[in-house]
C-alpha cells in the first residue's frame, strides 16, 4: 500500500491548518458564507438537510487497518457512531458540527487520509476495482495508476475550476468492476501484441441527467504517455467544456456536442503541448509507487479447516458461496463483507463494526481493506484456512449477511433522508425491498441481480446501470419512483430503459416484487440471470408484469 512521503504529509497538514483558520474566521464573522462556502467545499464539507456532512476520500477504495480505526474514531467522537460508505469509495459523516471539522481533518491527516477535492468542479477521488491486487483476472494492479493520478490531480493548478466535476476510474481487468464506462475518464489496463502493458482510455461516460456510455478515445496509451494524455484530455475539456449551462457542462456533453473525432483532435493538440513538459519523472514516480503496492508474502498452508467447515456448516457454506471470490494466490480468497443486512441502511457501518473489520484485517487480512462502489467492505487477501474463524467473528458483529450480488445487496444514495439535493428518499425503499425478499426467502433462487436506487436525477445511486434501477422524484409534492430496466455497469455496460409511469412510495416495493417474480417465470433456466433474460426478451414481457392493469387492458383490446 502507498504510504505518504514527507511532501504528502506536509501538503495535507498545511491544508488542515488553512481550513482550521478558515473555520475560525467564518465563526468570528470575518468570512461571509459566500466566501466560506467554496472553501469548505474544497475540503469536502457540505451543508445538508439536518446538519453538515463531511465527505472523506478513500483513494481507490484502499485502507489499512489504522486508517479504518480512524474512520471509526471520527464516527464515535464527532458524529453519531456510524459512517456511510458511498458509491464513489468515499465515506460520509452526516452530523459533524462546524467547529469540530478541523479536528476531524487532523485525525485523518495523521493516518494519511483527507477530504480534499471530494467536492467542487475538480478531479474527484480516483476510484478503482475493489478487488485490485487480488483478482485472478487482472493484467496489473490498477492502484499504482490510481495513486499516480491522485498525486497528479490533487491541487493541480490548471484543474481547480473545471466546467464541472470530473471523475476517473481504473480497472486492471477486462471484467469491469469499477464501472469505468460511466466515468468522465475510464482507464482499462491492457496488454498489446508485444506484451507491453498500456492503457485503453475512454472519455465522456457519465450518469446523472444525461446518462452516456464512455467512448474509447485511444486503444493503447503507453506508460510514458499516460499522464500527459490525461492532462491533455482534461485541458481540452477545460477549454471546450460549456460553462453557460450547468446541465451541459460535463465532459460527456462536450464529447457528444463536438463529436469524438473533433474532441480527440483537440486532445492531440493539447498533447503536443503537455508531452514535452513531462520529463519522465512521472514514470520514475510511477515505479516508486508501484513498488509500494507489492503483494504481501503469501502463506502456503493447508485449507482443510475451510473444507471441513464448508462441509459441516450450511450457514458458512451459503456465505462462502455468495461472499467469496477466487483469489490470484493459491489457498486465498477475496472476502466481501456485506453492509446490506436486510433492513440496514446500505453502506452504513457503526464505529464498532469498523473497528472489528480493522482487527480482522490485522488478524487475517494482511492489514488491508477495501471499500467497493457497491457500498460493501472487502478483505482482499484472506487465507482459506482462516475463513471459518473470520466468519464467526463477522457473525458476532452482525456483518455476516450472505447476499453479495443478490437482490438485497442494493446500492442506495442517502436520498432525502440526508441530502439537500434529493427529490425523494432512497434508503427506506432499499430497506423495504431487502426485508421483503428476506421474507420471501427467494433471493438465492433469483440469483445475480443488481438493484440501484437514486433519490434524484444526479444518480449517485447509479440507477441507470442497475439491472433494475429506481429513481425517486418529486411529482407534484409526492414521492414518486421511476423504474428503469436492463442497465449494466460492467464491460457490457448499458443504460437502463424507463419502464413506464412511476410508482408511489406504497407501490414501489410490490412493483419490484412483481418484476422479480415475473422474471422467474420468464427465464429460460435458473442459469439465465435477470439481465440476460431482459437482453434476450426485451422490455415487453417485463413491462407486462410491472403494469398488470395496462396489460389486462391491452389483452381486452386485442380480444375485442
Amino acid at each position, binding site marked *: 500500500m502507498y504510504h505518504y512521503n514527507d511532501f504528502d504529509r506536509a501538503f495535507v497538514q498545511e491544508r488542515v491548518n488553512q481550513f482550521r483558520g478558515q473555520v475560525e474566521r*467564518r*465563526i468570528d*464573522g470575518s468570512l*461571509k*458564507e459566500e466566501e466560506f462556502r467554496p472553501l469548505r467545499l474544497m475540503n469536502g464539507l457540505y*451543508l*445538508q*438537510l*439536518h*446538519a*453538515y456532512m463531511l465527505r472523506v476520500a478513500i483513494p481507490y477504495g484502499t485502507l489499512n487497518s489504522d486508517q479504518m480505526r480512524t474512520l471509526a474514531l471520527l464516527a464515535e467522537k464527532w458524529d*453519531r457512531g*456510524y459512517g456511510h460508505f458511498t458509491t464513489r469509495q468515499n465515506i460520509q459523516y*452526516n*452530523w*459533524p*458540527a*462546524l*467547529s469540530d471539522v478541523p479536528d476531524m481533518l487532523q485525525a485523518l491527516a495523521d493516518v494519511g487520509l483527507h477530504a480534499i477535492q471530494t467536492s467542487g468542479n475538480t478531479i474527484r477521488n480516483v476510484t478503482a476495482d475493489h478487488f485490485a491486487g487480488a483478482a485472478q483476472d487482472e493484467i496489473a494492479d490498477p492502484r499504482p495508476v490510481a495513486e499516480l493520478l491522485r498525486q497528479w490531480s490533487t491541487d493541480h493548478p490548471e484543474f481547480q475550476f473545471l466546467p464541472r466535476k470530473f471523475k476517473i476510474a481504473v480497472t486492471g481487468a477486462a471484467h469491469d468492476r469499477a464501472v469505468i464506462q460511466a466515468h468522465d475518464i475510464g482507464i482499462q489496463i491492457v496488454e498489446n501484441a508485444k506484451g507491453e502493458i498500456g492503457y485503453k482510455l475512454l472519455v465522456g461516460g457519465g450518469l446523472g441527467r444525461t446518462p452516456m456510455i464512455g467512448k474509447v478515445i485511444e486503444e493503447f496509451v503507453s506508460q510514458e504517455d499516460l499522464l500527459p494524455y490525461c492532462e491533455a484530455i482534461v485541458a481540452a475539456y477545460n477549454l471546450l467544456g460549456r460553462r453557460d449551462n450547468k446541465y451541459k457542462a460535463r465532459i460527456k456533453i462536450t464529447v457528444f456536442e463536438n463529436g469524438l473525432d473533433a474532441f480527440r483532435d483537440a486532445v492531440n493538440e493539447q498533447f503536443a503541448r503537455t508531452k514535452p513538459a513531462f520529463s519522465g519523472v512521472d514514470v520514475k514516480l510511477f515505479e516508486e509507487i508501484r513498488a509500494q503496492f507489492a503483494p504481501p508474502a503469501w502463506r502456503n498452508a493447508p485449507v482443510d479447516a475451510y473444507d471441513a467447515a464448508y462441509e459441516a456448516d450450511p450457514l458458512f457454506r451459503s456465505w462462502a458461496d455468495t461472499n467469496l471470490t477466487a483469489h490470484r494466490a493459491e489457498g486465498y480468497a477475496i472476502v466481501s463483507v456485506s453492509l446490506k443486512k436486510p433492513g440496514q*441502511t446500505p453502506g*452504513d457501518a457503526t464505529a464498532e463494526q469498523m473497528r472489528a473489520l480493522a482487527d480482522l484485517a490485522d488478524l487475517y487480512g494482511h492489514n488491508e481493506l477495501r471499500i467497493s462502489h457497491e457500498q460493501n467492505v472487502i478483505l482482499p487477501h484472506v487465507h482459506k484456512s482462516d475463513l471459518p474463524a473470520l466468519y464467526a467473528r463477522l457473525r458476532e458483529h452482525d456483518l455476516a449477511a450472505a447476499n453479495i450480488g443478490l437482490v438485497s445487496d442494493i446500492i442506495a444514495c442517502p436520498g*432525502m*433522508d*440526508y441530502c439537500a439535493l434529493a427529490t425523494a*428518499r432512497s*434508503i*427506506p425503499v432499499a*430497506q423495504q425491498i431487502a426485508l421483503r425478499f428476506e421474507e420471501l426467502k427467494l433471493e438465492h433462487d433469483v440469483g445475480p441481480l443488481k438493484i440501484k436506487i437514486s433519490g434524484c436525477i444526479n444518480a449517485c445511486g447509479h440507477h441507470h446501470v442497475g439491472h433494475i434501477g429506481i429513481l425517486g422524484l*418529486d411529482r407534484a*409534492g*409526492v*414521492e414518486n419512483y421511476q423504474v428503469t430496466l436492463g442497465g449494466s455497469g460492467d464491460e457490457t455496460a448499458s443504460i437502463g430503459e424507463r419502464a413506464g409511469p412511476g410508482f408511489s412510495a406504497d407501490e414501489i416495493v410490490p412493483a419490484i416484487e412483481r418484476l422479480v417474480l415475473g422474471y422467474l417465470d420468464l427465464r429460460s433456466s435458473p442459469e439465465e440471470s435477470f439481465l440476460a433474460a431482459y437482453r434476450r426478451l426485451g422490455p415487453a414481457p417485463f413491462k407486462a408484469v410491472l403494469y398488470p392493469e395496462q396489460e389486462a387492458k391491452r389483452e381486452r383490446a386485442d380480444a375485442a
Partner: protein
Amino acid sequence: MPRKFTPKVVTANRLLEGDAVWLTADGRWTPDMREAELMDEEAHAELRLLAAQSQADLVVGPYLADAVAGAAGPEPTHFRETFRTRGPSNYAHGKQVEL
C-alpha cells in the same frame, strides 16, 4: 398573472450545528417549526427574509418555505420541509428525538 402568495415561514440551517431552524415573530431562531412566525403577507415575508439574511453569524442559507397553520403552530406543506422538522427515517436521530 403573478402567482397568488401562499403563507410562508423563514427557515435556515444554524451556522455551527447545521441543523434546521425557523425564525420566530420575536426574532429568535427555533429548532421547533411550530414556534415559527407564519406570514400571510408577501411584503412582510420579504422583510423578514432580509432580516434573516443579515444574520450570517447565526444561520446559513435562509429562505421562505410554504407552511400552513396547524393546531400547535405552523406546519410544512411539502415532504422535504416535513423531513427537516423530523430528521432521517432510518435512525432515531435529529429533531424527532431531540425536541
